């Protein structure tokens, strides 16, 4: 019947834009040279997913395009700012980052395995913790706030030199206890809405929560430039936001609990590429 056909067509026309997502086979190549793995087999320890997908695959074409060229990616201006700071002497010891590390590129590979066990300190270490140790112990400078702009800029710089490398976070040995704690947090329901990380990012990825297209919640693109904040956003800031959205009381940014969660969530993305600083909505 013509009428029914038209109604169906009209209904479809209304539905399509609301769920218009980018081409599922789109490839992420940054600057025409860094090829990213955006979809691969889930790591063995991850029972709830067969395939892991970068957050990039959940974004619209327009947002995806912003990450494909460093002159379109607004995060890179903060990476530039961090490069200036890298070469600037600060603190009592008369040292800059460059004094010990030379070029930032010398840290290529670090981001792919963080967080990791720091033998000397006897705890799991994130990029922020390594940076502040350098500042306080080697440079004699004040530590940066975990979520401060200079810290986000510097973690973005350090991540940027590892882009395209495969995330490979260790989950055994001395980090195991923290990893188990992180896993426990991931599957614990928080807040008045009683939502665990897994409820959105494992059970319902690719579905919509209001107008938000739920991703698998990997952190290989962090720190990421969020269009909403128009700024770099740290992993812990995003964790805090998610728990707050459950109407729960989040752990503190930089807390041992969030470091444990960071380790566990990072390990769920083992096999994807380091994308940070990525661009997300």
């Amino acid at each position, binding site marked *: 019947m013509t009428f029914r056909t038209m109604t169906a067509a009209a209904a479809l026309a209304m539905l399509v834009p609301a769920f218009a997502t980018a081409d599922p086979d789109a490839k992420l190549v940054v600057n025409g040279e860094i090829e990213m793995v955006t979809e691969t087999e889930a790591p063995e320890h991850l029972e709830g997913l067969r395939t892991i997908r970068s957050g990039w695959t959940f974004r619209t074409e327009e947002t995806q395009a912003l990450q494909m060229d460093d002159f379109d990616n607004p995060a890179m*201006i903060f990476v*530039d*700012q961090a490069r200036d700071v890298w070469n600037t002497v600060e603190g009592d010891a008369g040292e800059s980052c460059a004094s010990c590390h030379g070029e930032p590129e010398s840290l290529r590979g670090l981001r792919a395995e963080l967080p990791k066990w720091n033998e000397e300190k006897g705890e799991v270490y994130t990029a922020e913790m390594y940076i502040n140790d350098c500042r306080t112990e080697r440079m004699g400078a004040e530590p940066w706030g975990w979520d401060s702009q200079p810290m986000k800029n510097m973690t973005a710089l350090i991540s940027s030199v590892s882009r395209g490398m495969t995330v490979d976070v260790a989950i055994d040995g001395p980090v195991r206890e923290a990893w188990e704690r992180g896993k426990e947090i991931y599957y614990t329901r928080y807040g008045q809405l009683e939502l665990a990380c897994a409820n959105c990012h494992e059970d319902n990825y690719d579905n919509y929560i209001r107008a938000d297209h739920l991703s698998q919640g990997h952190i290989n693109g962090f720190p990421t430039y969020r269009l909403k904040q128009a*700024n770099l956003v740290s992993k812990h800031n995003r964790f805090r936001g998610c728990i707050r959205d459950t109407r729960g009381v989040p752990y503190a940014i930089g807390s041992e609990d969030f470091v444990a969660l960071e380790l566990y969530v990072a390990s769920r993305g083992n096999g994807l590429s380091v994308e940070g600083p990525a661009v997300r909505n």
Partner: protein
Amino acid sequence: MAENVKARVRAPRSASAGEVATIKTLISHPMESGQRKDSQGNTIPRSIIHRFTCDFNGENVIDVKMEPAISTNPYFEFEAKIPEAGEFKFTWYDDDGSVYEESATVEVS
């Protein structure tokens, strides 16, 4: 001047005479719209970059009047004719009177 303003520009290092090249620019700036209120309910005063210009060897390529609806960290992409070797000059004008400048030289082969 807004804190720690930094610009990025992409222009070709070399071109053939008369070539049309794509130029991209980005500058870090909060572009405070004047529409927001602080936690006490007071309006945060407008503080934006209100004009951007690009010139090549003193001749204008583009001159943009910018309003508070331009996003934080303003980005522009446009095309420029490169008639001869020379220098691009990029200028951003802040509400507070600050002027931010960037340049890029182009060789002609």
